[in-house]
């Protein structure tokens, strides 16, 4: 039990903050990615490869580089940062809201990919039948598409959640390591490693690993195919 003595209130704060960030980010990502991927899956424009590439770009940019540009964009001197300041009275950079926005951008491909492949593989005959029965577009989406694509939806949520938990580079750049506000688990872990507090770092890493393992194992257990497909793809 000795290892647990190194779990301080600061660490519990960091764990709670990380879970909150991952949960809110994943909910927002689902709200964005569901309509977006449905539109992408049913649209065959000439510029589709370009649009798809734009949404996959967060996979390519190194997180610290992405974070650097977000730092510039979120600063009170940029139009976005200024707009946010005028609307909310708070700063976007060095705030929890800023982290959520950064994480949504950073994890977008992880929500988009499983949903997109799920929607592409969906048998369109169900929709045609529903149409002939007089279902509206919205009804068709929520009563036919979502129940049939339960696996990709769960995968999208789980992957964005897991990806946000492991997020480091972006938060490092735009967070400012404020305890209880922007000091997430990965940042606390990094600071302990740098401060040569290896014992504490080991405990934290173990927590992070066990938690992520359980999460991923649950995901694979419930819908192995959808997850493994999208992981391979990204």
């Amino acid at each position, binding site marked *: 039990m000795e290892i647990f003595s190194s779990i301080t209130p600061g660490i519990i704060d960091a764990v709670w903050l990380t879970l909150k960030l991952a949960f809110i980010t994943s909910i927002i990502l689902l709200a964005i990615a569901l309509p977006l991927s449905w539109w992408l899956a049913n649209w065959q424009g000439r510029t589709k490869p370009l649009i798809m590439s734009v949404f996959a770009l967060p996979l390519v940019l190194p997180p610290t580089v992405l974070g650097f540009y977000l*730092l*510039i964009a979120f*600063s009170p001197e940029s139009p976005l940062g200024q707009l946010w300041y005028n609307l909310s009275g708070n*700063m976007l950079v060095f705030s929890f809201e800023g982290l959520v926005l950064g994480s949504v951008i950073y994890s977008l491909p992880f929500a988009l990919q499983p949903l997109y492949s799920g929607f592409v593989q969906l048998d369109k005959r169900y929709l045609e039948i529903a149409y002939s029965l007089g279902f509206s577009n919205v009804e068709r989406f929520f009563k036919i598409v979502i129940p049939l694509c339960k696996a990709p939806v769960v995968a999208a949520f789980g992957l964005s959640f897991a990806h946000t938990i492991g997020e480091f580079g972006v938060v490092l750049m735009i967070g400012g*390591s*404020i305890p209880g506000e922007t000091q997430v688990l990965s940042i606390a872990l990094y*600071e302990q*490693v740098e401060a040569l507090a290896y014992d504490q770092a080991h405990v934290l890493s173990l927590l992070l690993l066990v938690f992520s393992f359980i999460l991923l194992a649950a995901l694979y257990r419930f819908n192995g195919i959808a997850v493994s497909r999208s992981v391979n793809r990204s």
Partner: protein
Amino acid sequence: MRSTIRLVVKALVICSLFSVTLVFAQDKQDKQGSRNAEVINVAVAANFAAPLKAYAEQFSRITGIEVNVTVASSGTLFAQIQHGAKFDVFLSADTARPQALIDAGKVHKDNMYQYAQGQLAFVYASDISPHIDAKPHKEEPYKEESIYLYKLVKQVTTTGSGKLAVANPLLAPYGEAAKNTLTHLDIWDEVQPSLVVGKNILQAYQYFTTGGVKGAFIAYSSVNIDSTVNTSIPNIHVIRVPEAFYQPITQALVINSNSKAVITPNVFNTLDTSDTKGVEHLTELTILPSHLFVQYLLSDAVQSSLPRWGYKRSVSAKASNEKASSTKSSEPT
């Protein structure tokens, strides 16, 4: 669609073939150019990277010894060395990590040298202006500076974002110095809600230059001191924090070896580096390249140029000469 993909794949293949050819050509050239050259690997803390690279270049020109420089944070480099990274010399931003390597038995206890003293600076945006018209008292040193800095910090924490950037006091010596200073001003507890913490001094500076904060405690070496050293950023004000406000930021290096290094006498202090005979003389020496490099860093020429980079010399001119004139009292064990 398919033809586009084919085209892209073709282009990629051609590009990669081309780059492979380039790499081989480069490799061949390197081997021919430096057949007998010796190479040393030097790890340096991020804050001293720019001066070290310049010094390493000069050193290579004088001695013909090639220097590979690796830049990372002191903590990262420490962990790497502790687990067997083959760096010949490690320049830390503090004295704690070199000491920890000695305590861990990785480095001989006499292989640690102080090479520079860091200085703390406070930068603030041009729209911050405490109205101060009093002149410094001679009787009470730093009283005016205290008031001035206090007002600046107060102004920063109440203007715009109200945030103030420092490096993490637990990780970075400059962060600790910033904490010392704010404690000295009796404002440390008060500014807690306003603090944003960078992992190191460069990140604290980045928070400032990207406009996120109006003021930051950083290394004096990271701001524009000499126009040839750094590119200037418009609309910033820099003040040097009086050294009485914080614990000295002593930067130390280690020669990463279990056996004792031979550093004295310092051959560079008696050497006219513009004289080619001196260079020939150096190549005849039997000193290990890494030891020679440390001698160079501790030499009077390098030490006296440190202020240009925003550091204070850690080896005084006198000590440096003494080292040069002392006889070979230390033999390798």
